[in-house]
Protein backbone atom coordinates (compact mmCIF):
# COMPACT_ATOMS: atom_id res chain seq x y z
CA UNK A 1 0.00 0.00 0.00
CA UNK A 2 1.33 3.39 -1.03
CA UNK A 3 2.23 5.91 1.67
CA UNK A 4 0.00 8.96 1.76
CA UNK A 5 1.47 12.36 1.00
CA UNK A 6 0.02 15.72 1.90
CA UNK A 7 -0.62 18.23 0.60
CA UNK A 8 -1.10 17.16 -3.01
CA UNK A 9 0.08 20.54 -4.26
CA UNK A 10 1.78 23.63 -2.90
CA UNK A 11 2.23 27.05 -4.46
CA UNK A 12 4.90 29.33 -3.01
CA UNK A 13 6.64 32.62 -3.59
CA UNK A 14 10.40 32.63 -3.53
CA UNK A 15 11.67 32.77 0.02
CA UNK A 16 8.64 31.10 1.59
CA UNK A 17 8.78 27.84 3.52
CA UNK A 18 6.91 24.59 2.91
CA UNK A 19 6.36 21.26 4.64
CA UNK A 20 5.46 18.04 2.87
CA UNK A 21 4.22 15.09 4.88
CA UNK A 22 4.40 11.35 4.29
CA UNK A 23 2.46 8.81 6.30
CA UNK A 24 2.45 5.02 6.19
CA UNK A 25 0.11 2.45 7.70
CA UNK A 26 3.03 0.06 8.20
CA UNK A 27 6.05 0.04 10.46
CA UNK A 28 8.95 1.54 8.55
CA UNK A 29 12.63 0.75 8.20
CA UNK A 30 13.43 3.87 6.21
CA UNK A 31 11.96 6.85 4.41
CA UNK A 32 13.39 8.30 1.20
CA UNK A 33 12.72 11.65 -0.43
CA UNK A 34 13.06 12.37 -4.16
CA UNK A 35 12.36 15.31 -6.43
CA UNK A 36 11.26 15.03 -10.03
CA UNK A 37 11.37 17.83 -12.55
CA UNK A 38 8.89 17.78 -15.40
CA UNK A 39 9.91 15.26 -18.05
CA UNK A 40 12.86 13.99 -16.03
CA UNK A 41 13.64 11.08 -13.76
CA UNK A 42 13.25 11.34 -9.97
CA UNK A 43 16.41 12.39 -8.18
CA UNK A 44 17.39 11.34 -4.67
CA UNK A 45 17.36 14.00 -1.94
CA UNK A 46 17.86 12.12 1.30
CA UNK A 47 17.15 8.97 3.26
CA UNK A 48 16.18 8.60 6.91
CA UNK A 49 16.78 5.28 8.59
CA UNK A 50 15.04 3.92 11.64
CA UNK A 51 17.01 5.04 14.65
CA UNK A 52 18.92 7.56 12.56
CA UNK A 53 19.25 11.30 12.80
CA UNK A 54 17.31 14.04 11.11
CA UNK A 55 18.91 14.77 7.77
CA UNK A 56 19.59 18.03 6.03
CA UNK A 57 20.72 19.16 2.62
CA UNK A 58 21.29 22.89 2.20
CA UNK A 59 17.91 24.42 2.99
CA UNK A 60 16.04 21.14 2.69
CA UNK A 61 15.76 18.88 5.70
CA UNK A 62 13.58 16.02 6.87
CA UNK A 63 12.45 14.25 10.00
CA UNK A 64 11.25 10.71 10.68
CA UNK A 65 8.86 9.79 13.46
CA UNK A 66 9.26 6.02 13.73
CA UNK A 67 6.44 5.55 16.21
CA UNK A 68 3.91 7.27 14.00
CA UNK A 69 5.38 5.97 10.71
CA UNK A 70 5.52 9.52 9.45
CA UNK A 71 8.10 11.72 7.81
CA UNK A 72 8.14 15.39 6.93
CA UNK A 73 10.24 17.26 4.37
CA UNK A 74 11.04 20.88 5.20
CA UNK A 75 11.92 23.36 2.46
CA UNK A 76 13.20 26.62 3.85
CA UNK A 77 13.46 29.91 1.96
CA UNK A 78 12.32 28.25 -1.25
CA UNK A 79 14.06 28.92 -4.53
CA UNK A 80 12.75 28.65 -8.08
CA UNK A 81 14.84 25.52 -8.49
CA UNK A 82 12.79 23.77 -5.82
CA UNK A 83 9.84 23.48 -8.18
CA UNK A 84 8.93 19.92 -9.06
CA UNK A 85 7.09 16.92 -7.71
CA UNK A 86 8.32 15.45 -4.44
CA UNK A 87 7.95 11.77 -3.65
CA UNK A 88 8.49 9.93 -0.44
CA UNK A 89 9.56 6.31 -0.67
CA UNK A 90 9.20 3.82 2.16
CA UNK A 91 10.83 0.55 3.11
CA UNK A 92 9.42 -1.83 5.67
CA UNK A 93 11.43 -4.35 7.70
CA UNK A 94 12.06 -7.75 6.10
CA UNK A 95 11.26 -6.66 2.54
CA UNK A 96 13.25 -5.36 -0.39
CA UNK A 97 10.42 -3.29 -1.76
CA UNK A 98 10.69 0.48 -2.15
CA UNK A 99 7.17 1.91 -2.30
CA UNK A 100 6.49 5.49 -3.30
CA UNK A 101 3.72 7.88 -2.45
CA UNK A 102 1.50 9.69 -4.93
CA UNK A 103 3.62 12.81 -4.90
CA UNK A 104 3.34 16.48 -3.95
CA UNK A 105 3.62 19.07 -6.69
CA UNK A 106 5.52 22.15 -5.56
CA UNK A 107 5.54 25.34 -7.61
CA UNK A 108 7.69 28.30 -6.67
CA UNK A 109 7.04 31.65 -8.32
CA UNK A 110 9.19 34.81 -8.33
Amino acid at each position, binding site marked *: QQPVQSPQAVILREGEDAVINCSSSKALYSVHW*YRQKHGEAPVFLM*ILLKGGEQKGHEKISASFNEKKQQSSLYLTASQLSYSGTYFCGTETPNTDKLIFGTGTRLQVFP
Partner: protein
Amino acid sequence: DAGITQSPRHKVTETGTPVTLRCHQTENHRYMYWYRQDPGHGLRLIHYSYGVKDTDKGEVSDGYSVSRSKTEDFLLTLESATSSQTSVYFCAIRWTRGTEAFFGQGTRLTVV
Protein backbone atom coordinates in the same frame (compact mmCIF):
# COMPACT_ATOMS: atom_id res chain seq x y z
CA ASP B 1 25.40 9.15 -13.37
CA ALA B 2 24.67 5.76 -11.89
CA GLY B 3 25.11 4.08 -15.27
CA ILE B 4 21.53 3.08 -15.89
CA THR B 5 19.87 3.16 -19.28
CA GLN B 6 16.41 2.24 -20.45
CA SER B 7 15.41 1.19 -23.93
CA PRO B 8 13.49 2.06 -25.88
CA ARG B 9 12.82 5.60 -24.69
CA HIS B 10 9.56 5.82 -26.59
CA LYS B 11 7.31 3.15 -28.03
CA VAL B 12 3.89 2.99 -29.61
CA THR B 13 2.36 -0.44 -29.89
CA GLU B 14 -0.99 -1.99 -30.68
CA THR B 15 -3.35 -3.61 -28.24
CA GLY B 16 -2.68 -7.31 -27.86
CA THR B 17 0.96 -7.26 -28.90
CA PRO B 18 3.81 -8.28 -26.58
CA VAL B 19 6.25 -5.59 -25.52
CA THR B 20 9.59 -5.83 -23.75
CA LEU B 21 11.33 -2.95 -22.04
CA ARG B 22 14.95 -3.18 -21.06
CA CYS B 23 16.83 -1.74 -18.12
CA HIS B 24 20.61 -1.95 -18.28
CA GLN B 25 23.06 -0.98 -15.56
CA THR B 26 26.83 -0.84 -15.45
CA GLU B 27 27.19 -0.41 -11.68
CA ASN B 28 26.69 -3.99 -10.46
CA HIS B 29 23.83 -2.94 -8.16
CA ARG B 30 22.05 -5.86 -6.58
CA TYR B 31 18.53 -4.44 -6.60
CA MET B 32 16.54 -3.43 -9.66
CA TYR B 33 12.98 -2.15 -9.79
CA TRP B 34 10.31 -1.40 -12.38
CA TYR B 35 7.78 1.35 -11.71
CA ARG B 36 5.01 2.91 -13.72
CA GLN B 37 4.08 6.55 -13.36
CA ASP B 38 0.57 7.82 -14.03
CA PRO B 39 -1.08 11.13 -13.12
CA GLY B 40 -2.59 10.98 -9.67
CA HIS B 41 -0.90 7.69 -8.80
CA GLY B 42 2.71 8.66 -8.41
CA LEU B 43 5.21 5.85 -8.85
CA ARG B 44 3.80 2.37 -8.48
CA LEU B 45 5.99 -0.69 -8.10
CA ILE B 46 5.43 -3.38 -10.73
CA HIS B 47 8.17 -5.93 -10.04
CA TYR B 48 11.60 -5.94 -8.51
CA SER B 49 14.71 -8.09 -8.40
CA TYR B 50 17.08 -8.76 -5.53
CA GLY B 51 19.57 -10.77 -7.54
CA VAL B 52 20.08 -12.79 -10.71
CA LYS B 53 16.97 -14.90 -11.30
CA ASP B 54 15.48 -13.58 -8.03
CA THR B 55 12.38 -11.51 -8.63
CA ASP B 56 9.18 -10.69 -6.83
CA LYS B 57 5.90 -8.92 -7.44
CA GLY B 58 5.15 -5.34 -6.60
CA GLU B 59 1.83 -3.61 -6.08
CA VAL B 60 0.61 -3.58 -9.69
CA SER B 61 2.08 -6.71 -11.26
CA ASP B 62 -0.95 -8.06 -13.14
CA GLY B 63 -0.27 -8.21 -16.87
CA TYR B 64 3.50 -7.88 -16.43
CA SER B 65 6.36 -10.32 -16.14
CA VAL B 66 10.08 -9.79 -15.58
CA SER B 67 13.33 -11.60 -16.04
CA ARG B 68 16.86 -11.08 -14.84
CA SER B 69 19.30 -13.55 -16.30
CA LYS B 70 22.37 -11.43 -15.56
CA THR B 71 23.21 -8.71 -13.08
CA GLU B 72 23.15 -5.83 -15.52
CA ASP B 73 19.82 -6.44 -17.29
CA PHE B 74 16.27 -6.40 -15.99
CA LEU B 75 13.55 -6.94 -18.57
CA LEU B 76 9.89 -6.00 -18.22
CA THR B 77 7.44 -7.76 -20.52
CA LEU B 78 3.86 -6.91 -21.23
CA GLU B 79 2.53 -10.23 -22.48
CA SER B 80 -0.44 -8.70 -24.30
CA ALA B 81 -0.46 -4.93 -24.11
CA THR B 82 -3.67 -3.11 -23.17
CA SER B 83 -4.56 0.57 -23.29
CA SER B 84 -4.49 0.69 -19.47
CA GLN B 85 -0.76 -0.03 -19.67
CA THR B 86 -0.11 3.24 -21.46
CA SER B 87 2.25 4.92 -19.05
CA VAL B 88 5.76 6.12 -18.35
CA TYR B 89 7.92 3.28 -17.04
CA PHE B 90 10.93 3.88 -14.83
CA CYS B 91 13.64 1.49 -13.85
CA ALA B 92 15.57 2.05 -10.64
CA ILE B 93 18.66 0.44 -9.13
CA ARG B 94 20.32 0.45 -5.75
CA TRP B 95 23.03 -1.37 -3.83
CA THR B 96 21.02 -2.77 -0.98
CA ARG B 97 18.23 -1.97 1.46
CA GLY B 98 18.50 1.38 3.15
CA THR B 99 20.39 3.00 0.30
CA GLU B 100 19.41 5.54 -2.33
CA ALA B 101 17.82 4.53 -5.60
CA PHE B 102 19.00 5.76 -8.99
CA PHE B 103 16.45 6.07 -11.76
CA GLY B 104 16.70 5.59 -15.48
CA GLN B 105 15.35 8.26 -17.83
CA GLY B 106 12.08 6.44 -18.37
CA THR B 107 10.25 4.82 -21.26
CA ARG B 108 7.07 6.37 -22.57
CA LEU B 109 4.82 3.56 -23.77
CA THR B 110 1.61 4.20 -25.67
CA VAL B 111 -0.76 1.33 -26.41
CA VAL B 112 -3.28 2.14 -29.16
